[in-house]
């Protein structure tokens, strides 16, 4: 274009050019002339002024039409006139005076955005892989221990105007402040309270502090949620923490085993005690009954005996001997034991007893 215009002595601006000079293929002028002709084909001069007017009108129309914009349901439109805030528009098809008079921003005001701290999710939420970022997650606790924390912050735009105009880097600011606040909150707590329980407390305190700080910046940001995902000992020492858990289990196991032992021996002991008592009772019954039986038998015999003492006495004596001596080996010696050496073969007796056993 420029080249064409520069070489054209008449200029393209509506003036009818003089008749084309005879063509010459050899010199530079000829090349210029040829391009001139071509140019004329595109921008016809003379009676075609109307067409130029139409083109200009179309250009102006297009320029005006460039002011049409759409605000999506989750967005809000913020219109600036010569850079100055003019109005806020709601979702729908809208119009603003074309640039550079007016410009529009459409921040997504209802969309909840998430900032991950201590970890990053890759490849979309839910299915994505997680990778930890230890330099964000590791922090000091109030008792100078180190804890590994991951959390996320869900926020949305509270005030589109403040959000757009007050902070240069709103997302980075949310991240920085959230990280700073978490370290402040964790720094006040001893390790054990940060590890166990207190999750809700930490989240609430973080959210409140974060919101207050952002409000002091007039950031136009609303913190929806602070979610503490993980509060663990650092990986370097997690084994020893697991060992404490194992020790707790061991403790309970020892106690349970002892309790089981107690539960086993005590009923047995009670059973044993009952047996001893019952044996004693049995003995009592046996002894007294035998005594009573013996006594009554004696009484009965005595009653009989007292009626005929001599006869009964003799009878008892003879009956007893008869019975006891019936099965015995008996040796009867002569008068006065004459001719027999009273020799007792003790080994023989012993042998006989041994043989019996």
């Amino acid at each position, binding site marked *: 274009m420029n080249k064409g215009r520069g070489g054209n*002595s008449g*200029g393209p*601006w509506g*003036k009818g050019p003089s008749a084309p000079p005879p063509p010459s293929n050899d010199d530079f002028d000829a090349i210029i002339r040829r391009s001139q002709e071509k140019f004329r084909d595109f921008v016809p001069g003379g009676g075609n002024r109307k067409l130029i007017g139409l083109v200009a009108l179309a250009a102006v129309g297009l320029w005006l039409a460039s002011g049409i914009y759409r605000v999506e349901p989750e967005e809000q439109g913020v219109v600036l006139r*010569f*850079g100055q805030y003019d109005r806020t528009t709601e979702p729908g098809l809208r119009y603003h005076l074309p640039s550079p008079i007016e410009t529009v921003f459409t921040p997504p005001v209802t969309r909840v955005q998430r900032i991950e701290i201590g970890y990053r999710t890759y490849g979309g939420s839910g299915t994505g892989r997680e990778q930890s970022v230890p330099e964000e997650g590791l*922090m*000091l606790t*109030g008792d*100078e*221990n*180190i804890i590994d924390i991951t959390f996320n912050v869900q926020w949305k735009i509270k005030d589109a105007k403040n959000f*757009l105009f*007050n902070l*240069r880097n709103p997302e980075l*600011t949310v991240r*920085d402040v959230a990280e*700073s606040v978490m*370290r*402040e909150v964790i*720094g*006040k707590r001893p390790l054990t309270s940060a590890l166990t329980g207190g999750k809700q407390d930490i989240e609430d305190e973080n959210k409140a502090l974060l919101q207050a700080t952002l409000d*002091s*910046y007039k950031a136009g940001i609303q913190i929806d949620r602070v979610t503490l995902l993980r509060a663990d000992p650092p990986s370097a*020492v997690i084994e*020893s923490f697991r*060992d*404490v858990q194992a*020790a707790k289990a061991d*403790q*309970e196991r*020892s*106690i349970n085993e*002892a309790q089981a*032992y107690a539960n086993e*021996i*005590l009923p047995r*002991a009670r059973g*044993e*005690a009952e047996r*001893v*008592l019952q*044996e*004693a009772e049995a*003995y*009592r019954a046996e002894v*007294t009954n*035998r*005594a009573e039986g013996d006594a009554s038998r004696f*009484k009965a015999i*005595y009653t009989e*005996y007292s009626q005929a003492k001599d006869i009964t006495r003799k009878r008892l004596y003879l009956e007893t001997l008869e019975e*006891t001596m019936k099965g*015995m*080996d*008996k*040796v*009867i*010696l002569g008068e006065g034991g004459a001719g027999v050496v009273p020799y007792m073969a003790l080994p023989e007796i012993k042998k006989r007893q041994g043989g*019996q056993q």
Partner: protein
Amino acid sequence: MAAKRSNTRYGLIAVLVIGAFAALNSLFIVTQVEQGLVLEFGRAVDVKKEPGLHFKLPFVQNVIIFDNRLIDFNAESKEINASDQKRVIIDAFVRYRITDPLRFYQTVQNERGMRDRLNDILESSLKKVVGSYPLNALLSPTRNKIMENILAEVNQQASGTFRADDENVSDAARQVAKLGGFGIEVVDVRIKRADLPQTNSEAIYQRMQTDRAREAKELRAQGEEAAQRIRARAERERAEIIAEARKTGEVTRGEADAVSTKIYAEAFSRDKEFYDFYRTLQAYRQVLDGKDTTMVLTPDNEFLKYLKEVKP
């Protein structure tokens, strides 16, 4: 002819073009997030803070645009000595706003220049404030107060309102103090990370490990203790139960013996001589039984008296 006519046309066009260019050059837009500093041959003549369309003299004046928003500045990590000589690595960030574009331009030209100065100021402020507290103050509710002090200190240095004999003020701040500061307002300084250097972290890890090991040992020992106690108590109880039962059993047996003795005594005391006879006969029955006994008798025996003769 044709050349003359086109010359006047060109002249007109040139005037129009130059006029339009001048008009455009005299107009400038300051948006909602900006502020403009108008310079005339390098000398500041005006500051435009309100957003909108503004005028200036074409060609002789030019405009430098500065940000009007809160600007973030994350400082490099700094290793600071706390008052108890513990070293701590501090990451801090600053949020500031350019309040006086002229002074800002005069002192640091642009934000890059500001970053270097701000880094120095922050470092000297951290050294002064953090250095006056022990490490554990950073790990306590006092942290908030420390951050407030740092903010005040940074603001003093940035605005040149520090005391002249303050040794901690950075050279950068000292240089611009005469001009009345950098023309910024520091809105917030927050400590992001306050960590111990790597070697100290190792020491902490070791301490944490030994702490846990101690706790684990204690728990296991406590478990043993409780278990022993339970076992010992159970065994004692078992011994008690059985001893108690044996005692009761012996008492019962004793009573039984007493009762039977009494019964026997009562029955047998009617005739001692007959009891003697009767009981002896019973004992014979018990003792002299079976084949193991060999009885050697002589006819003198009472039982055998009739073997010898029959006396009339």
